[in-house]
């Protein structure tokens, strides 16, 4: 019988090795994949209960993790947003059920302490019985500006972006209406589900960051792109451009009128920009051609994304989004090129993109890609992440200076005089976009002030004004003025 028992022992050994081999296979081949599955509730639980790092705007704490209420049975810690809805579109939220958004999403590894540089240290801390803490994320947001910009928009649906043109740092980013991320971070799952349902059904789309993650027809602010292309092509501010009171589009019986006091004859390039003369820019566009316009637009940042910190929707210039969400080229005819040159056809931009256009002009033609996260610092002070600037020379320095000066006309005597601040050198460009017959137009005003240099883009989605640049300037101008006022030393 011993021979049989030996054989049985061999089978028994094989069984033990099969179990051990299977566990090894699991660890090597399956474990990581399974751990990363979004359906793996335990991963969410384990990350959810970490001592997550703070998010700061200046010295102001805009997101932090605090001990959970004693009544909380599931978790020891609770994520809170002390400023409520003010920074919702920047911090995003950290929800047990509905995932993460904003910086909570894009800088999750640093906040959670799971990025490779922190992971080892966290492991050591866990062995030692300490609670590993995530890194603190410092944003570029100026709390005062964020506050003023939010107040200025008030109840309107819209967005304000404030950029430092020299660095691309986002000093304020407001999208209204906003929402309270605390509602989505709660551990009361019934209340959470109710809040989520309400926000999803919200007709004003409070959860959408209009400043960066949505695009709108930019109206006449797009004339800045046409102007930059024209300067590159050799136009000067004094070049005379045919500016009839209205112009017939090629191969069409449609007539395009001017919406502002541009006369019926010729105007200088500078005047046409300051007064936002449609027919001048239509003629400019036809003379420059679709390729020159698109090339300039893309140098400013259109048709691609530039804002990984929060994620941005690509602004579109002669492109559209196909069914699967990709950008595909469209080939405009002459009429469409003329309309685009004045900002009325298939082009769309985010408020952030239009601020980038102005900031590039102010920064001597050097486009600095925008960012909102300055750095991430571990609890012991080690800097784990620091923003590295990326830039593109979008136009020559000389052309940029010229265009910057031309934009002053808009504020000083053109369509945007409502934004004037006595004693401050300012420039800008107003815009109005009629996006659908009978609907309220979008009002735009993108402007800058010098010394200190700052660029502000004001976008009002629910502008109850008539569809003229004068009206948009009158509506958005005071907002721009007040925001710029707030950037200046008191």
């Amino acid at each position, binding site marked *: *019988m011993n021979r049989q028992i030996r054989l049985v022992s061999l089978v028994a050994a094989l069984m033990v090795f099969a179990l051990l081999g299977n566990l090894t296979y699991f660890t090597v081949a399956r474990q990581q994949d399974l751990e990363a599955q979004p359906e793996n509730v335990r991963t969410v639980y384990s990350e959810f209960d970490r001592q997550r790092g703070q998010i700061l705007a200046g010295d102001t704490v805009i997101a932090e993790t605090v001990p959970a209420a004693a009544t909380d049975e599931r978790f020891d810690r609770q994520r809170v947003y002390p400023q409520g809805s003010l920074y919702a579109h920047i911090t995003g939220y950290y929800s047990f059920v509905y995932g993460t958004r904003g910086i909570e999403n894009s800088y999750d590894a640093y906040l959670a302490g799971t990025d490779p540089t922190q992971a080892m240290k966290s492991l050591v801390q866990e062995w030692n019985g300490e609670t590993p803490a995530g890194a603190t994320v410092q944003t570029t947001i100026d709390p005062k500006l964020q506050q003023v910009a939010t107040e200025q928009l008030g109840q309107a649906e819209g967005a304000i972006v404030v950029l430092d043109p020299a660095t691309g740092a986002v000093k304020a980013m407001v999208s209204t209406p906003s929402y309270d991320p605390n509602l989505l971070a709660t551990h009361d799952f019934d209340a959470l589900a109710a809040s989520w349902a309400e926000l999803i059904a919200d007709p004003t789309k409070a959860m959408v960051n209009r400043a960066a993650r949505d695009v709108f027809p930019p109206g006449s602010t797009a004339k800045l792109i046409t102007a930059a292309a024209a300067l590159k092509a050799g136009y000067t501010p004094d070049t005379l451009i045919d500016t009839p009171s209205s112009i017939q589009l090629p191969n069409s019986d449609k007539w395009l009128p001017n919406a502002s006091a541009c006369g019926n004859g010729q105007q200088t390039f500078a005047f046409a920009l300051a007064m936002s003369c449609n027919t001048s820019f239509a003629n400019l566009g036809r003379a420059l051609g679709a390729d020159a316009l698109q090339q300039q637009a893309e140098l400013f940042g259109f048709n691609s994304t530039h804002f990984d910190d929060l994620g941005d929707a690509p602004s579109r210039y002669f492109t559209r989004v196909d069914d699967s969400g990709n950008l595909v080229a469209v080939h405009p005819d002459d009429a469409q090129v003329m309309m685009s040159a004045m900002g009325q056809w298939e082009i769309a931009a985010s408020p952030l993109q239009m601020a980038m256009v102005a900031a590039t002009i102010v920064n001597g033609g050097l486009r600095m890609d925008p960012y909102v996260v300055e750095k991430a610092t571990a609890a012991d002070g080690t800097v784990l992440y620091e923003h590295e600037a990326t830039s593109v020379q979008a136009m020559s320095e000389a052309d940029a200076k010229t265009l910057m000066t031309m934009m002053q006309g808009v504020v000083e005597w053109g369509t945007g005089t409502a934004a004037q601040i006595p004693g401050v050198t300012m420039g800008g460009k107003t815009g109005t976009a009629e996006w659908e017959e009978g609907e309220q137009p979008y009002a735009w005003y993108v402007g800058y002030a010098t010394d200190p240099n700052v660029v502000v883009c004001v976008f009002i989605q629910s502008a109850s004004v008539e569809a003229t640049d004068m009206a948009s300037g009158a509506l958005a101008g005071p907002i721009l003025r007040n925001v710029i006022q707030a950037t200046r030393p008191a």
Partner: protein
Amino acid sequence: MSELTAPVAPPAGTAPVVFKQRRGIELVLILVAQSLGWGGYILTGLNRDNAFPAHWLPVTIAWFGVGVALHLVVRWRTPYADPVLLPCVFALVGIGQAALYRFTLDFDKVSEGGRFSERSQIIALFLGLAGCCAILIWLRNLRRLNAYPYVLSAAAVVLLLLPLVPGLGWEVNGSRIWIHLGPFSLQPAEIAKLVLAASFAGYLTENRELLASGGRRLLGFRLTRVRDIAPLLVMWGVSLVIIVGQRDLGTALLFFGLIVLMLYVSTGQLRWIVIAAGLGLGGSLAAWRLFGHVQQRVAYWLHPEDFPDGAYQIITAQYGMSVGGLAGAGWGLGWPYMTPYYFNDMIAPSLVEEIGVAGLMGIVVIYGLIAFRGLRMALQAKDPFTKLFAAGLSFGFLLQTFAIIGGSTRLLPLTGLTCPFLSQGGSSMIANWLLAGLLLVTSHEVRRPVDLVEVDLADERTMTIDVRQLRHLFSGQAAPLLDVPADLVKEDDAAAGPERDETIALPPPGGLS
């Protein structure tokens, strides 16, 4: 070797093998093994509340006290028992009890079905310990189990089928494997495992020659008579009834596997495995075709992701294991309660979640150690009954472990079985402690030095029989024809027939003079 060697003095110049008792080592190992579970218990408290568990002092005293007490019983009654067995058992029991204590801390997060009575579990542990002691104290001669093989066989079958009795049986989670006995509920299959191993060892000891050599030859194959194969057929039938009536695939496979193994070991013929594989395959195929739950089990195993509801148990257990990873989240820091049956069938993935793949690997090795010590006893044992019984017990033990750990970690389709010594469940705990007791007694008998007696060789000489001559005369049919003590010829494999040419190890006459 044959029992004849026992009362005879060894050849000159050699000494009889005397196993060392190694009881001191055993005590140290027990304490080390016990501290694994104890550490889990204390760490659970520290990790959860930054404090020792509420009753840690009495629990600690009781726990180590039990270890020392059982050690003393072994020292007293079975001093030659295998010194590794008990430490292995205490390691498993400790880890299991710590896990069950740790599970109770999450009872506020689970529904009624996710809870169990920790009190019953501890009572079962002490009943199991008492049972183990009882075996150590009163079951000194294993062959007493060999007295009534048929009665025991019948008892095993009855135990297995008991849950099907209306009014007594009780269905939990689709499986009808429980019976109600007054205020207690029992899983009779757990006890049946032991009874069956004993009864089959007894039956096969008596009948193995018949099974091995009976029947006519046809085309080079020996046809087994139906009468000889009947026990296999009966067990096969019982297994099918269990699959169909109790919807308990695991138990059926376990018992069928146990019978096949013991048939093979006793007869030394691989054809039993072939026959059994045929029957098993046929039965499985029939079960597959006829009963949806068998097909489902396999589908859930192969493609759990396609069955988010049906295979939820497997999927979520895999998620739990992934979170545990190699080192585990730490005692009390995982979420094992998210997996259905996390405290019985799925306890292996639950443990991975907190003590890691490395921890479970250690547990698997401990199970392997217990089984291998058991198989080693079978090799060392001198009589066929003890050999069969020890092999059956240890292999059955490992087979059950293999099926449930393999099933819960996606090596095999999941079949509901308890994980010996770890899972919650009183019947399982008691039955496995009895098994431990039986293995201890067996190993004591096997390792115990034989009582040496002085033999007057002149008197004994007449009893020396040259078996080679017998073989020559009767070509394999020797034993039953002569009035020769059966023990002399019933040597290992001697019954296998004339095609084997083994000399039978009797004391050489020269050695006696």
